[in-house]
Structure formats: structure tokens, C-alpha cells
């Protein structure tokens, strides 16, 4: 069965490159009508589902406030909670590993797998493992790593990236999925019937689950109080990956830790309802220990890899720190007019949409992501639906400022700050600022501007490609008011 004809070519540099060609990506994807229709349909569906799952606005707003505060408390105590989590997990028999960079995280995982002599790996859905491009890393070491979430599996077969953090294959319609199956799966009888397509995926993946040596998953919440890793899912692939192989490796960002077990129920309720409008997902899986003596299944070894990759940079600034409140529900992208039109791939980053625009600069630096914060009409929808009340529009503005800042190159500056700064633009604003501070200069310049308004060009770059150029009045407002008073 040739289900794994997948050539790794996804490297860190490719992501950097794609985010820096954001404008070209947008042109490319806007021209793709099928893609636009796939996204429009999916976003309408997800928005309706979310809305229906919050019949009481009072309840929704109370929950949002509560969960925002839960996450903010966890962040204020973050270093302490990470230590507590580690201690608890160790007591429970789960080993914790720390990684500053994506390469360190991949290296740790590869060595863990090698220590087991593992060759066949199944992976539940994990965006952090997308962030580290783990698949390519392991495949380069001759390990077979198979995505087991149905959406991720489709995306892997097609040698693509997820276009949405919750529904990775949302950019494909069922006919396109059928075409992908036909191309990559031997003896596949062509059909666009979704039940049959899922059945085909099930058949192949169940076989892989039963033969895998190692299972890799993400983590939705890590509870410091009890040393518990929580997984939210509908399909059962997360359970398959964490319960069937002899080794389970979980990977997550350092911001996923929460303090108490009691923090979980409100967060879980808000997560699933915001994401897909479900009261709860089919499965909620809480893992606290490896297989204990006398138990018959579950992994003998459980490991947790904690990844920084730029998160500590966001943490260092109180406004930007709010980015780390994110519980990865995807509601901001579902409600984003830009995301709905350009789709998830145009962003060129692992995390697309509004949340991606404020996370990616910390992971990749502002230089290659400087266009992302500008890809917003600042309509505010993302901030309004965010379950943990991240002020995404404010943070977008802040990142725009950071990207054009006059940097000193000192400590505490964001990676790539000032990379969007242009000398002419900076000079124009400097002059503008000066004019508005010195009344005499303002008067003289306005007099000249109104008298020589005929010299204003009718083509003003991108602005006039869809608009007519603005025209200055023949006289300044000051002059006209003065004339009326006489």
C-alpha cells in the first residue's frame, strides 16, 4: 500500500519565504475561485454553529471574562506553574523535556524515538508539531510518521500544510479529497461519498495504529495541580496515538499550562463551543500517568516536550503577552473577512488568520512577517469572538508600530523590529509632525498647498488603482472661517 509517498520539502526557510511573499500569495489565492468557495462555505458553517451554541449572551460574556482571567492568572504564575507541572508529572512517571527552538524539540523527539528503536510513528493532531516541521525532520531520519487526524492525513497525502488550525483540510472539497485519494491510495475505488472516503481513511489508519511503536500528540491543556495532559478531539485518533503504542510523546507550547483542575471545565466548554459549536467534543482524554503495574494497555513511557520558540519574547511585554492566552479554537479565523477570502495558505505561516498574524512575528521575526499585521481591516470581529478576550486588533496595531519603529538594536526589542521602516515614509511623517507643532509653518505650508493644488498628481500608487485621487480645497479652512466671520 503506497499511502506514504510523501516527499519532505517543508523546511523552516520555506515558511519564512512564504510569509514574506504574502502579497503574491494573496493574489494567487484570490484568483482561485474553487478555493474561495470552499472557504466561504466552511466559514459560514462554523460561524452559524458557534452562534447556535451560545443561546445566552450573558452566559457567553461571563464565561469569556472568567476564562480570560483563568489564562491571565496562569500567565502571571507561568514559570512557577511550569515547575509545578514538571514536579507533578515526574511524580506521576511522565518525563518532561524543554526546548528553546524548534530544532531542539525535534532533536529531543527523534532521540526519544531512537531510544525505543521506533520506526513507525503515528501522530494525532498537533499544531506545535507543524510549527517544528517535525514530519520532515523525522522522515529525513528514515522514520515513517503518519498523520492520523482525517484532515491532517488528507493534507499530508497531498503534501500540503493545514489551512486552518481546527479543520486542516478545509480548503479541499470532497471531490478534491477523492482526487487526492485516487492519486495516492492503491486500489481506491473512486467516489465522492464522504462516508466511504472516511471509511477508506479509517481502514488504512487503523492498520497503522495497530503497528505503530510511538504515538505523538499535542496537548490542549496541561494541569499543573495534578500533572495531567488533556486532549480534545472528535475522531479518537488522539486516543489511538496516546493509548495504543508503547511510547507516547506529547509536545506543546509553554503557554498551555493551567493552574487547577477546576480551571478545565469552563475552558473546555468555551473551547469546543467557540471552535465548532459543540457542547463538548466526542472525546476528552485526560492522561496523568504511563501504564501502571497491572494495567493492560496504555504507553509504558510518556514524555512531554515543552517548546518556547518565541513565546518568551511575547511574554516579555505585557500587551503582547495576551497573545499567549490563546486556547487555539480558531474562532478568530472563522470570523475574519480577510481569512475567509484569502484562505489559510496565503499567510505562509503555520498559524493563519488573526491569531497567526500576532503569533508568527514572535516565532519567525517581524522581518519576514511584517506584512501580516497589515492584512487587516481592523473590523474587530476577531477580538469580539475571542473566547479569552485577546485584544487582537490592538495587538495588530502594536505590531505595525513595532515593524516601522526606529530601532536602536538594543535589548528588549522584538526580533525584526523596524524592518518595515522606509526612509521616505519616516521623513514624511517627521515633517507632518513638525508642521502640526509649529503654527506659522503650518499656515505657510497650507497656503502653498491650496494655491498649488493643481500640481497634485492624479495617480497616487495603489490608492488610486480603485479610487479617484483626493483634491485639496482652493482655500484653507482657516481662511474660509475667517472670511465668514467678517
Amino acid at each position, binding site marked *: 500500500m503506497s499511502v506514504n509517498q510523501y516527499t519532505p520539502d517543508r523546511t523552516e526557510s520555506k515558511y519564512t519565504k512564504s510569509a514574506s511573499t504574502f502579497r503574491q500569495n494573496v493574489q494567487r489565492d484570490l484568483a482561485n475561485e474553487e478555493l474561495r468557495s470552499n472557504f466561504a462555505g466552511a466559514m459560514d458553517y462554523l460561524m452559524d454553529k458557534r452562534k447556535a451554541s451560545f443561546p445566552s449572551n450573558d452566559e457567553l460574556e461571563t464565561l469569556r471574562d472568567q476564562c480570560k482571567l483563568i489564562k491571565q492568572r496562569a500567565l*502571571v504564575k507561568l514559570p512557577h506553574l*511550569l515547575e509545578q507541572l514538571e514536579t507533578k508529572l515526574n511524580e506521576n512517571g511522565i518525563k518532561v523535556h524543554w526546548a528553546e527552538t524548534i530544532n531542539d524539540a525535534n532533536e529531543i523527539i527523534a532521540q526519544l524515538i531512537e531510544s525505543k528503536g521506533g520506526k513507525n510513528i503515528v501522530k494525532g493532531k498537533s499544531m506545535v508539531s507543524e510549527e517544528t516541521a517535525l514530519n520532515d525532520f523525522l522522515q529525513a531520519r528514515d522514520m515513517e510518521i503518519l498523520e492520523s487526524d*482525517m*484532515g491532517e492525513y*488528507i493534507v499530508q497525502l497531498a503534501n500540503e500544510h493545514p489551512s486552518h488550525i481546527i479543520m486542516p483540510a478545509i480548503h479541499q472539497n470532497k471531490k478534491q479529497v477523492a482526487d487526492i485519494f485516487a492519486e495516492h491510495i492503491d486500489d481506491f475505488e473512486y467516489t465522492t461519498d*464522504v462516508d466511504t472516503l472516511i471509511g477508506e481513511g479509517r481502514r488504512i489508519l487503523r492498520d497503522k495504529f495497530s503497528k505503530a511503536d510511538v504515538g505523538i500528540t499535542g496537548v490542549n491543556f496541561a494541569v499543573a495541580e*495534578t500533572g495531567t495532559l488533556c486532549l480534545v478531539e472528535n475522531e*479518537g485518533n488522539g486516543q489511538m496515538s496516546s493509548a495504543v503504542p508503547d511510547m507516547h510523546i506529547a509536545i506543546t507550547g509553554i503557554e498551555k499550562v493551567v493552574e487547577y*483542575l477546576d480551571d478545565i471545565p469552563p475552558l473546555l466548554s468555551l473551547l469546543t463551543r467557540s471552535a465548532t459549536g459543540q457542547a463538548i467534543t466526542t472525546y476528552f482524554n485526560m492522561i496523568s500517568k504511563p501504564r501502571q503495574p497491572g494495567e*493492560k494497555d496504555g504507553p509504558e513511557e510518556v514524555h512531554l516536550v515543552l517548546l518556547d520558540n518565541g513565546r518568551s519574547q511575547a511574554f516579555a511585554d505585557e500587551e503582547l503577552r495576551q497573545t499567549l492566552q490563546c486556547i487555539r479554537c480558531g474562532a478568530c479565523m472563522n470570523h475574519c473577512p480577510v481569512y475567509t477570502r484569502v484562505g489559510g495558505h496565503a499567510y505562509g505561516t503555520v498559524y493563519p488568520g488573526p491569531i497567526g498574524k500576532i503569533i508568527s512575528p514572535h516565532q519567525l521575526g517581524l522581518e519576514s512577517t511584517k506584512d501580516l499585521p497589515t492584512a487587516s481591516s481592523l473590523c474587530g470581529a476577531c477580538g469580539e469572538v475571542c473566547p479569552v478576550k485577546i485584544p487582537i486588533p490592538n495587538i495588530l496595531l502594536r505590531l505595525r508600530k513595532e515593524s516601522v519603529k526606529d530601532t536602536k538594536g538594543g535589548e528588549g526589542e522584538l526580533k525584526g523590529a523596524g524592518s518595515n521602516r522606509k526612509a521616505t515614509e519616516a521623513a514624511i511623517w517627521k515633517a507632518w509632525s513638525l508642521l502640526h507643532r509649529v503654527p506659522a509653518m503650518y499656515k505657510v505650508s497650507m497656503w502653498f498647498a491650496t494655491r498649488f493644488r493643481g500640481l497634485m498628481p492624479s495617480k497616487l500608487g495603489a490608492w488610486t488603482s480603485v479610487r479617484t485621487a483626493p483634491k485639496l480645497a482652493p482655500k484653507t479652512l482657516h481662511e474660509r472661517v475667517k472670511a465668514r466671520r467678517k
Partner: protein
Amino acid sequence: MSYKFTQQSNSARSVILQKLKKQVEGADYDKLPAETGFTYPEISFEDQFTHFVQLLRNNQAKVISTSETELMDQVISELKARDISSLLYGADSPYSQLIEQGINQSGEQVELQDYDYQLTDNKDKLFNHTPASITSSNWAIAETGTIVRWPSQNEPRTMSLVPPVHMIIVDANKLYCNFSSLVKDQNWKDNMPTNALLISGPSKTADIQQTLAFGAHGPKELIVFVMNSPTDINL
């Protein structure tokens, strides 16, 4: 484990923690704002139960009211309806005697399989020769239509995951209004098991064009047998 790798992880640990601590040093935890949860209106037990059943049915679970005397007749009839002649159960589990007696007395050709093996060496058996399983459950949650299971030595976690048909027995007297009250009332924080599972239907996915399909990886069918049900649900 290799020396270099452990050392690297240790040094990453101290760098990360140091960076974080620098930012929140001296933070006054007492000054954190109060977190207020939403006060849900009181709902009668009957209404909670009806809601529980309704949500499970919305999620394509089959829900059947049962009793100790009816259970095994109903189980066998569900098996026969699917042409299944083998059932995985856990010996020495809460309903095991009832299950054993029921099968023996029925005279039906149903083979009762005990989960008396280590999964590591028996994956083929569980994945390819186990069409159905039956397990007990610990609690249930009305708000979300959820069944809570703490897998045990006798009823391991893969019993409710791998077989295509999973039957689960729920005691209505163990129904909680919501997850929060269950966690608090049963003091989970002081005795978390190896694995705790919340199950709210058969395995499903909407990953292809938002079209719901059941039986993604786990059970295609979830059959819920409710003991002590306060209202008539067999309608």
C-alpha cells in the same frame, strides 16, 4: 538516554524559566481579580436526565433504558441485529457477573472474550477480531450528554476505543449536572487515575467539506444502556 540530549534540555529549562521569571518577579498573587463563573438556573433531575439522553441521541448514540433483569436480553438482541457473535468484556468488573450469566443462560452462540491480555502483544486480536465491547462507566454529565469512564485494570481504556461497536452501561443515579460539579464533588484533584475519559457519542469527523461522518477511528456505534432511568426514554 544520551547525555548530550539531557544536558541540552536542562539548559533550555533554566534559560526559559529565567526569562519568564524576570518578567513576573514579585507579582502579587493576592491582587489578581476575582473570577466569577456563570450561575446556571436550577434544573430538575428529570429535566437534566432528559437533556442528557437528548444530547447523546443528537450525537447518534443509541440510548436504551434497562434494568439488571433486562440488560442481557437487550445486549444480545443488539448483537444479533448486527450479526455479531463475540463480545469483549472485563472479568471482575461491576456488571461482569450479570454479563456472564446472561450469555450462559441465553443459549445464544455469543463468545464472551475477557480482556485478559497485554495489548502490546495482542493488537491484532483487539483491532481485527473484536467486533464489540461492553463496559461500565463511572458517572455521567447532563449538560453536555457525556459519559465519564475511568478505565481500570479490568476494563482498560482501549475497550471503549478500538471495537467498532461499544456498549456502555450508565447508572442514572450517577448523573451530574455539569463537569465542574463532578470534578469538585468527586474530588478528582486528589485521585486522578492513569487515564480519565469523557465520551459523548461514537467517533466522528467533519474534516471533509464539513460533512459529518461517524466511525472516524474509534467506535462507529455507541449503545448506551441506562440503569435506574427516572423517566421513560424508550419512546
